[in-house]
């Protein structure tokens, strides 16, 4: 009789998320992700500047379609992301607790909060125009209307932490019609890639969100200097990196969202500042009568 062999578990290869696909890093590099106790969890792709460049091209390509979609449609898709995330709750809880530092209960609360955050931003998609837009009284025979428009391709340096912070920086950028390239938290990149799997199955067009794992200090300056990136969110950058990136971002006058001064409570009501940071106002003068 043959001996019963123990089944080998099939491990997931964590890759990047660019243009709706999951490529390995162009550089072929990877790095070891460990728990807070130093135990091996997985190998994650270490993105290079060329991956960043590819991600920007993908984001640029996706921009006309995404910004041209109706606000209603964008809201539906964000809501769909929330639905998909809810369905994967257990997987996220497992990944968050594996990194360590939080218990299962706390991790569950974080996932719930991330789902709620998406639903909250989904609701804003067709309301932000009403809040920020206006009919302006002008001294002349014109209708004068202002409305918020998306900035374009936004680079995002995601905050430390596994999921809630990440969702809280991606959702406000894309709900208004921007597309983004996200540099995930270096220490806890696995939930970011699992989030990419959620995004890929949520009718979100490929390229609207691109997720890179690896060193923010290595990749973010390339994004900050990229002439085809229109804005950069430095929430997750340390002080030194933020200065470097802001200087590089000046060349093509990127909109820059500086890192918060105080520690952010991601569970708190975020307000609309993250959305307005990457909106610009278009004003139209329309003649009245003839």
């Amino acid at each position, binding site marked *: 009789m043959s001996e019963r062999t123990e089944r080998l578990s099939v491990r997931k290869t964590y890759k990047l998320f660019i243009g709706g696909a999951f490529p390995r890093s162009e550089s072929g590099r990877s790095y070891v992700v460990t728990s807070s106790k130093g135990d091996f969890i997985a190998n994650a792709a270490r993105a290079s500047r060329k991956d960043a460049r590819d991600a920007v091209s993908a984001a640029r390509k996706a921009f006309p379609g995404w910004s041209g979609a109706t606000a209603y449609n964008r809201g539906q898709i964000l809501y769909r992301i929330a639905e998909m995330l809810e369905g994967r709750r257990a997987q996220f809880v497992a990944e968050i607790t594996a990194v360590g530092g939080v218990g299962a209960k706390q991790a569950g609360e974080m996932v719930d909060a991330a789902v709620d955050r998406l639903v909250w931003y989904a609701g804003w998609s067709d309301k932000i125009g009403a809040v920020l837009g206006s009919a302006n009284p002008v001294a002349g025979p014109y209708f004068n209307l202002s409305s918020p428009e998306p900035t374009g391709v936004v680079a995002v340096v995601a905050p430390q932490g596994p999921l809630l912070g990440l969702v809280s920086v991606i959702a406000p950028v894309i709900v208004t019609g921007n597309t983004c390239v996200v540099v995930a938290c270096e220490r806890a990149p696995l939930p970011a890639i699992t989030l990419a799997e959620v995004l890929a199955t949520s009718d979100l067009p490929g390229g609207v969100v691109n997720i890179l794992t690896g060193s923010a200090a290595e990749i973010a300056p390339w994004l900050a*200097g*990229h*002439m*085809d990136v229109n804005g950069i969110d430095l929430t997750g950058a340390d002080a030194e990196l933020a200065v470097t990136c802001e200087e590089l971002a000046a060349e*093509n006058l990127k909109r820059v969202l500086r890192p918060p001064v105080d520690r952010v409570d991601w569970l708190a009501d975020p307000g609309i500042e993250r959305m307005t940071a990457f909106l610009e106002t278009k004003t139209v003068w329309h003649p009245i009568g003839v």
Partner: protein
Amino acid sequence: MTTPLAEVASSPSTLRAFLHGLPGVDRVGADARAAMLGTRSIKTTAKKQAIDMAIRMVDLTTLEGADTPGKVRAMCAKAVRPDPGDSSVPPVAAVCVYPDLVATAVEALAGSGVKVASVATSFPSGRSSLEVKVAETSLAVAAGAAEIDMVIDRGAFLAGDYLKVYEEIVATKEACGRAGGAQGGRRAGGAQGGQGAHLKVILETGELATYDNVRRASWLAMIAGADFIKTSTGKVSPAATLPVTLVMLEAVRDFLAATGRKVGVKPAGGIRTTKDAIKYLVLVNETAGPDWLDPDWFRLGASSLLNDLLMQRQKMATGRYAGPDYFTLD
């Protein structure tokens, strides 16, 4: 080769015997070799040189039904000075337009050294009578085109009527020379004096089905007097591919060895990125040899490629990735 090359076209049967006597192409081998050469890594100073060389080899092309004189003039300005902010960028080799816009392009490029190429012979399908094709060629040359990009009759080629294809190329070549000879002195920067216009023969490899046919069509065009053989019109997919260009480069290399006459190669259509362009340059160097790495012997038919070359050039100069917002659209 039992028949001397000059006499292979004396009858349909000798021509057929010659073309079918050419060795067959190993399709898998050609694909693999092209793919292997495509993996060569060209970086830093070599890349800088390659980018400038590729810019000098570009035939900046617009072949749309919606082409206007204004668009052609704008493209000509870009051909002469591809990056208005950087005078170190060399001009491209030529612009390529439809015959009716040749005069506009000639006027816009007068004295610049950039040549005007015109497609002719009922481009892109080539479905018309020989008289019309010859007349179109003559008119384009008379308008000042220095280069004529003709299409072969793929229908006749695939039907095995090689002599018809041969005779059309010969007639077009004659029209290039005749019209150029008569008009040569009239326009500066136009057809090159008594030599007439250069003839590029478009094989439209996307419609030829096999690499064996590509090799046959290449030889047929060269025997008939082509100065250049060109892959595609850009209107059929697949357009230029690396393996097809490999087969054509082998043909021009072998033709030089057999006859002592050098023929140029022009892949066209579908070459959009600097990476693609550099792959072609590697292919030229490794197949036909460095003698062909010159705008007189190798061209890249493209429109959007130039912007990508300029963006890569700027990236190498400034160290930051460039964006299309900062280059002219074409």
